[in-house]
């Protein structure tokens, strides 16, 4: 193996570059993206058309499938940030994100509307609603985190509690009414700010990415969560408290959920408890898996996860464009998930590496002789 790598390095040939590219974690999402782009290019090139069309308010905004993808993937990308950290530290995934988005959205509407379900004006400043929503979401995240970290329940089972109860709690917060906010300024965060042709969620997602990039750059979060995910007991012996780290990752995911929930309700200025962010947990887990991150915890690559989120949205939009029933899309995605996890399974990886060695071994022999 080492001799083979050495020869590759020495030669730095085309094959070596390809090999390094394939080994890069960003390879999988980028390859998937290229496949999708090619498919759409062949099927219908008008998929990539971007035009400047007047919106319903009369000012020009960008429109087109690509803009839709980048716009709608914002929530997914924000959630992927938190999910990657949770996956890394706890070795499991949070399946309650969809339900907690419903709770977060419900809280925002409750604060803005008060007891009136059709208020003339908002009862509180938007920033207050947003902050309360972040606090509530973080508390729900902490609830999951405590169950996982301190009571040592498997993450997916612990989050199953909120997965079931979440939408019911969301409905209960608003007495099962569907409040509608008529003030247009609330819709700015999910649609467009007047005069700006780019959808606002894109900026919010970008802001979240910058924040998490700074956090990962200037704090030990990456190192700590990876070490906890790889071996909790040895990281405890090295002075890291695995329980605190797991709790922190779940709280961060809670904050991400709050931001995503805020965007979701702002898009429509209302909420439908049973439909909002439906099946989004599947998409987020898929994004993390597509990013090449091990779903059993440990090392992670944040860029790859976020890129994965955009690829998933690309896939969804493509399926929508070909008039696939929205409920049937989950079947296709499930197939993609299965293929991905099978390819990344340790057993299959081992077999593939063996196969690769078998194929390349004689060639490496030849190369050595040549050198």
């Amino acid at each position, binding site marked *: 193996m080492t001799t083979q790598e050495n020869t590759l390095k020495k030669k730095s040939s085309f094959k070596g570059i390809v090999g390094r590219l394939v080994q890069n974690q960003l390879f999988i999402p980028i390859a998937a993206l290229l496949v999708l782009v090619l498919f759409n290019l062949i099927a219908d090139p008008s998929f990539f058309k971007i035009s400047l069309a007047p919106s319903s308010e009369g000012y020009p905004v960008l429109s087109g499938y690509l803009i839709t993808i980048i716009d709608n993937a914002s929530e997914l990308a924000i959630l992927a940030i938190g999910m990657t950290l949770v996956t890394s530290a706890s070795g499991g995934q949070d399946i309650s994100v969809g339900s907690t988005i419903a709770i977060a959205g419900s809280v925002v509407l409750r604060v803005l509307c008060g007891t009136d379900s059709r208020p003339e004006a908002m009862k509180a400043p938007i920033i207050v609603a947003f902050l309360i929503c972040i606090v509530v979401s973080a508390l729900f995240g902490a609830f999951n985190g405590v*169950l996982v970290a301190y*009571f040592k329940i498997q993450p997916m*089972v612990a989050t199953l509690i909120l*997965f079931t109860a979440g939408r019911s709690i969301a409905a209960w917060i608003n007495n*099962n009414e569907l409040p509608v906010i008529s003030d247009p300024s609330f819709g700015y965060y999910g649609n467009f700010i007047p005069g700006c042709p780019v959808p606002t969620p894109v900026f919010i997602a970008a802001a979240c990415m910058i924040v998490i990039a700074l956090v990962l750059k200037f704090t030990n979060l990456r190192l700590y969560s990876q070490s906890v995910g790889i071996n909790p007991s040895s990281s405890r012996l090295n002075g890291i408290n695995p329980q605190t780290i797991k709790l922190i990752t779940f709280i961060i995911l809670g904050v991400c959920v709050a931001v995503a929930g805020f965007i979701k309700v702002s898009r429509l200025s209302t909420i439908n408890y049973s439909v909002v962010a439906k099946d989004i947990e599947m998409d987020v887990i898929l994004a993390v*898996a597509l990013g090449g991150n091990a779903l059993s915890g440990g090392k992670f690559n944040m860029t790859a996860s976020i890129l994965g989120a955009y690829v998933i949205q690309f896939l969804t939009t493509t399926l929508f464009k070909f008039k696939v029933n929205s409920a049937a899309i989950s079947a*296709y995605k499930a197939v993609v998930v299965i293929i991905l996890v*099978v390819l990344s*399974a340790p057993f299959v990886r081992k077999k593939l590496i063996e196969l690769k060695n078998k194929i390349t071994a004689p060639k490496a022999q030849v190369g050595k002789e040549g050198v």
Partner: protein
Amino acid sequence: MSVNVSTGKKTLKNKVALTDTNLLLFITIGVFIVMYVCAIIFLGRGFTKPQAFFNILNENASLIVLSCGMSVVMISGGIDISVGQVTALVCMACAVHLDFQGGNVFTSMLIALGIGLAFGLVQGFLVAYLEIQPFIVTLAGLFFAKGMTTIINASQFNVENEQFKALKSTEVPVPLMGSYNKLGDYIPAYVEVGVLVAIFVVIALFVSLRWTKLGRNFYAVGGNSQSANMLGINVKFTKFMAHLICGLCAGIGGYVYFMHVGSGSPSHAAGAEMNAIASSIIGGTMLTGGVGNIAGTFFGVLSLSTIKNIVASLGLDEAWWTNITVAAMLCIFLLVQSVILARKNKNKK
């Protein structure tokens, strides 16, 4: 000498009585009795009639079957969250087969079993032989089944097949359990066919988990797969079989559900996996594997449905209260398990 033997036996007996399985089973049965007494006290005499109890069975026959399969997987250390959507898929496939393709009841049963078997085979293979996390595999299974249900047929419809309708409305009388109405007429108590199937599954799995080699292997693998491997147990095959049995139970449970509702709809059995997991956990099956009892699961389903009935009769009949209660109960029992586990680890040290 004889004294020694008897004391030895006594300590052994005490030890057996306090294993986790038995302790959790006692908690479950206790909870069920308390629930039922509460129901009788708060909700009046409706619950004292045997038929009230049989109605709980009638409504939850499919959940009993699903939970039994779930318990087997959980005892072996895995989990299967696809069972609810597989139930919906079975209902839809059978309904379409009976109504649109002119099939008969027998072939529809084969379809149900086939779907369950297929899910069990694929998921079991992926989990056991490719060593992928069971949660991810079955989450994908859940979404696949959900999508497939919609692809087969997107709207709800009732089955009009005569043969099936006859089967659906068959009522099996239970002797000596009837009651007299106000006019003094005797009304026999009855259960549906599905309940008989459910009881058969419970007994079959109870017996095989307790007295067969495969059944004991589930406990060994769930308790500690490494030591099970060293004892010469085929760990992969055992895990595979656990998922296969769960898939089969999902198929059977799906058909029982179908016999109860008699229609196909993409929204059928939504959240059934949650109820099945909750029932298993309430019934004393440990999420960590190796601990559990089918009898406990049976009582777990009964406790859960009694609570639901109480919640519904208290006037909190909006759907969200049921969900919140189930989640709260699940949470409490998870915490109890976690505490028991922590105590056990402490004792070990």
